[in-house]
């Protein structure tokens, strides 16, 4: 329950920042945020949790040159993973919300002398939130279901899997990476198809 709340709030905050990044005129920022969101949305949650729990410590080890991978507690790992994962979904919701606020509102805010930040904080985002509230709540419900799913999988199972990997070297990692790549390819393809479909049926305002 606590995880749901933290993930929902953290995801919303981080997601809103990501949405603003995706809407930024600075191309590298836009692409970086877009890449992150597409990646997170194309991979199943379980895989992300696995990756984060096992691969990030290994990556950190090679980066810092330590002789043992740093232990990130299972619980903290879960919190971070969920926030990062949900943020990608909340980003897309907030991006839709921001774009649903008419351009004229931005014009009026700027015409009064408000800066971009002031306009976003006082005029655009409040309206975006209100517009997207139903969808944000739906996403939170889905998140809650995901959380309860994960809590079924005991932390000891992950530890058990880690032991197996340590014994059998790197073969299982390769297998899981292959599965992830297949997932990513399929999901990305599907989302491209959906985008194309949306363009066809979109109503020009």
């Amino acid at each position, binding site marked *: 329950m606590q995880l749901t709340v933290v993930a929902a709030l953290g995801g919303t905050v981080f997601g809103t920042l990501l949405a603003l990044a995706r809407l930024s005129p600075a191309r590298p920022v836009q692409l970086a945020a877009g890449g992150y969101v597409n990646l997170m949305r194309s991979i199943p949650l379980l895989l992300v949790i696995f990756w984060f729990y096992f691969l990030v410590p290994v990556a950190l080890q090679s980066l810092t040159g330590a002789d043992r991978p740093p232990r990130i507690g299972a619980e903290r790992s879960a919190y971070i993973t969920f926030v990062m994962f949900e943020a990608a979904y909340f980003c897309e919701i907030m991006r839709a919300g921001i774009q649903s606020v008419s351009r004229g509102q931005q*014009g*009026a805010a700027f015409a009064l*002398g408000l800066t971009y930040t002031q306009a976003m904080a006082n005029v655009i985002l409040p*309206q975006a939130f209100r517009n997207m509230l139903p969808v944000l709540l739906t996403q939170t419900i889905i998140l809650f279901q995901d959380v309860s799913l994960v809590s079924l999988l005991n932390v000891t199972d992950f530890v058990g899997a880690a032991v197996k990997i340590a014994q059998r070297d790197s073969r299982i990692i390769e297998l899981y990476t292959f599965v992830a790549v297949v997932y990513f390819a399929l999901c990305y393809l599907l989302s491209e198809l959906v985008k194309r479909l949306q363009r066809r049926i979109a109503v020009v305002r």
Partner: protein
Amino acid sequence: MISIRNVSKWYGSFKVLSQCSTEVAKGQVVVVCGPSGSGKSTLIKCVNALEPFQEGTITVDGTSVGDPSTDLPRLRARVGMVFQHFELFPHLSIIDNLTLAQIKVLRRDRDTATKKGLALLERVGLREQAPKFPGQLSGGQQQRVAIARALCMDPIAMLFDEPTSALDPEMINEVLDVMVELASEGMTMMCVTHEMGFARKVAHRVVFMDKGEIVEDVPTAEFFGNPAARAERAQQFLSKILHH
């Protein structure tokens, strides 16, 4: 006060404004008219940098609008703008609409801002609407609030982008009355409008635009009084709209 010199603007390869030049002196009222697509709304939005432009210069009270080093928010705070679709902030009450920019931009404290807001609401005849929300007001009322909102910033000039075009006919007059009063108090105004009655009453000059160019830029009396001397396109336009 407002000086527009050889301004050109492109959207990609489409030329929207072509070498536009005009001036609005302090205390003057200039009406900009023309057929749709002529670029008049785009031109007025260039004045406070809501739209960028690629060529030419625009100066407002000595400050260059196109200069990248200009503090745009500060400039925009000194020039009020009223939009065709009112653009009140729907999630804020009327009085909050009026005080938001005063507090955030002019750094006034809430009491001063509220007093000012209420005084301007009084001036446009809408004091009792202060606690309501924009959705509860009629179009004419919303536009009057929008004018009050712009005036709360104590602007040196006011820009109007077709302020009455989205209003029902019976509400147009209440908004025009406010604008006429503003003009009579000596406010520098640049108005894009189709309301020729308003133009005749208060405008010092009329600028006629067509296809991105300024075709006519003459004193009001000359524009309406001497139609034969006007360019062909202006004459056509006049004949079409003076039939109300």
